[in-house]
């Protein structure tokens, strides 16, 4: 874990129960679904089939999956430029997501947003966002709405270690504490902001920033799906019960480059070693770890899990076929879609 620059072992957030077998299988399926989506996007991007940049979530799947397992469509989530995983885990449709990234009319945003901005408001997915840190205040605002509604909804903000240096973090920690808003701050500490190692630009322990507001803050192994699941479960429960905001720092690692054009852009530039990446890939893959635990503790057989993986791959292939067959975006849409039609 040295690459995260945080050194010591994350403390366990909670000793409570893990997911039930059914929940565990859903968690596994979600992680695999994200992985297959991202691998396909990686390949299609390399093949030049996607118009814009894609920022992939490979290796970080346990975070989105473990947190969103506790959410329903009524709950809100804000995401980042690296947002496919959150979209998928929060229940977004991978066909319309793929169509969006392919810039098609059938895209969830009609091709107007693209990879960095997949959103499905009907599912509470308030959007991937191209502005680092922007989700913090949006999630807090949605949490304010949830509190006003008073019906136990919660709002989750996913953001990176890099984003945690935006002052918006402190501002939203402050206001959500004061107003006891049902918001869960999930910092995905994947070791890097673009090509800069976290330790170079992030002082102290990120979770301490929340503790300064006496906000409950857990530091978890973000590659351990169960660990994330537990910490998130506790935070979501607290928020639903009116107990206010919580903070989770999930320590993980970005396996892919910052974005898929990275090696082209970087040329000979280097900011981490191939061994470091290989180490994480081999020893700390969140899906492999979870899979072997499921098998070893008897939750599922290898064959069962293979079947899930195969099904998931079919769904991804189908989604890509759907996207590929879609219509090009309406080029004139922007001129009519900027403003919502007013009543009367």
């Amino acid at each position: 874990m040295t690459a995260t620059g945080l050194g010591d072992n994350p403390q366990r957030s909670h000793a409570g129960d893990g997911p039930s077998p059914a929940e565990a299988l859903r968690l596994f399926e979600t992680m695999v679904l994200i992985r297959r989506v991202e691998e396909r996007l990686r390949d299609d991007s390399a093949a030049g089939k996607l118009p814009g940049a894609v920022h992939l979530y490979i290796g970080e799947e346990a975070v989105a999956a473990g947190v969103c397992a506790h959410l329903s469509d009524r709950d809100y989530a804000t995401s980042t430029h690296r947002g496919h995983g959150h979209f998928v885990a929060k229940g977004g449709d991978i066909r319309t997501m793929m169509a969006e990234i392919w810039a098609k009319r059938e895209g969830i945003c009609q091709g107007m947003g693209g990879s960095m901005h997949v959103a499905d408001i009907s599912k509470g997915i308030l959007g991937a966002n191209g502005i680092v840190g922007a989700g913090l205040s949006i999630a807090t605002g949605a949490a304010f709405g949830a509190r006003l509604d008073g019906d136990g909804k919660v709002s989750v903000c996913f953001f990176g270690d890099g984003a945690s240096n935006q002052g918006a973090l402190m501002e939203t920690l402050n206001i959500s504490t004061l107003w006891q808003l049902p918001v869960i701050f999930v910092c995905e500490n994947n070791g890097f902001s673009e090509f800069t190692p976290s330790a170079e630009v992030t002082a102290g322990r990120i979770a301490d920033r929340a503790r300064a507001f006496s906000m409950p803050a857990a530091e978890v192994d973000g590659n351990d799906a169960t660990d994330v699941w537990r910490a998130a479960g506790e935070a979501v429960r607290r928020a639903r019960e009116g107990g206010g905001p919580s903070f989770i720092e999930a320590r993980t690692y970005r396996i892919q480059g910052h974005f898929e054009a990275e090696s082209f852009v970087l040329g000979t530039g280097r900011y981490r070693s191939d061994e470091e990446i290989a180490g994480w890939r081999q020893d700390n893959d969140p899906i492999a770890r979870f899979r072997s635990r499921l098998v070893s503790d008897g939750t599922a057989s290898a064959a069962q899990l293979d079947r899930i993986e195969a099904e998931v791959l079919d769904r991804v292939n189908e989604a890509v076929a759907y996207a590929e067959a879609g219509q090009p975006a309406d080029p004139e849409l922007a001129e009519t879609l900027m403003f919502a039609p007013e009543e009367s």
Partner: protein
Amino acid sequence: MARTRLIQAIHDAVVEEMARDPKVIVYGEDVELSIVGDLRGVHEQFGHDRIRNTPICETTLTGMAVGLASAGYHVVVQMMFSNFLYTGMDAIGNQMSKLRLMTGGQMELPITIIATIGGGSANAAQHSDTSYPMLMNLGGVNVAVPATPADAKGLTKTAIRSKNPCFLLEPNGRGGELGEVPDGEYLVPFGKAAVRREGDAATVVAIGRMLKPALAAAAALDAEGLRVEVIDPRTLVPFDEDCVLSSVAKTGHLVVVDEARECCSAASQIAAVVAEKGFSLLKGPIRRVTTPNVAIPYAPNAEAHVIPGEARIAAAVRELLGRTENHRQGVPA
């Protein structure tokens, strides 16, 4: 009809809309007692869930509005001075003006942001900007600039009922001015200018705080035999091009008075629209009377020098029409 102060008109509009729609939520720094004064006392009627003092953190105030609006509320944010829009600019420039398109029309963002614009009170450069050009260029937000209590009320109500982000920019230092406000439900539509004075010698478009000196200039010019038409656009986005173009069709001359700095001002925008769509109507150059490209100075004499006033407006009209000041002296007052 009742004579009402401008800040009271905004207050009444907000209170009426809060009463009409429980989804209207108001917040802002120190908004309960409120230095600007437009929302004073509203919390006593509606309580802390509906209107609330926030910490000082403009980045989050504008950003939260996006989230709260996405959650189905109509958000009213009181930002005090429009200079603080710079501080909260991220969510304005990158989020609320863009997200509806970016989500393919999924998001509705009923957000009203209230702030004061303009100088004239020796508040110096960091509290005197007229910042609508920056907002107008974003493409995704409406901009209202009421100059009278009636419009302040009617435009505020229209903004709060809108499904889109709207900026309601109050004229700084004019909050205490009185004007007739129609009784009962009173809405002013966006995109409809008001002809404040009719005339045929020249068209003067005067924005927000500039209406008052423009009307004073028009009165002075009247005494010189020049009848100018004074148009108050009331909203800059959407903008009532037809009203201005048909006035120019009548007068052949256009002066635009704008407290914003000259470069990329609303005045430049209006001039460009007329130079493009109304060129054949023009009998002479389009004159802009604006604040020069400077920070607003503190000293009242220096402030008065840079902000357009009656004398500069009248001089611009005279110059356009080939009249000299001497000429003026020849006319009995």
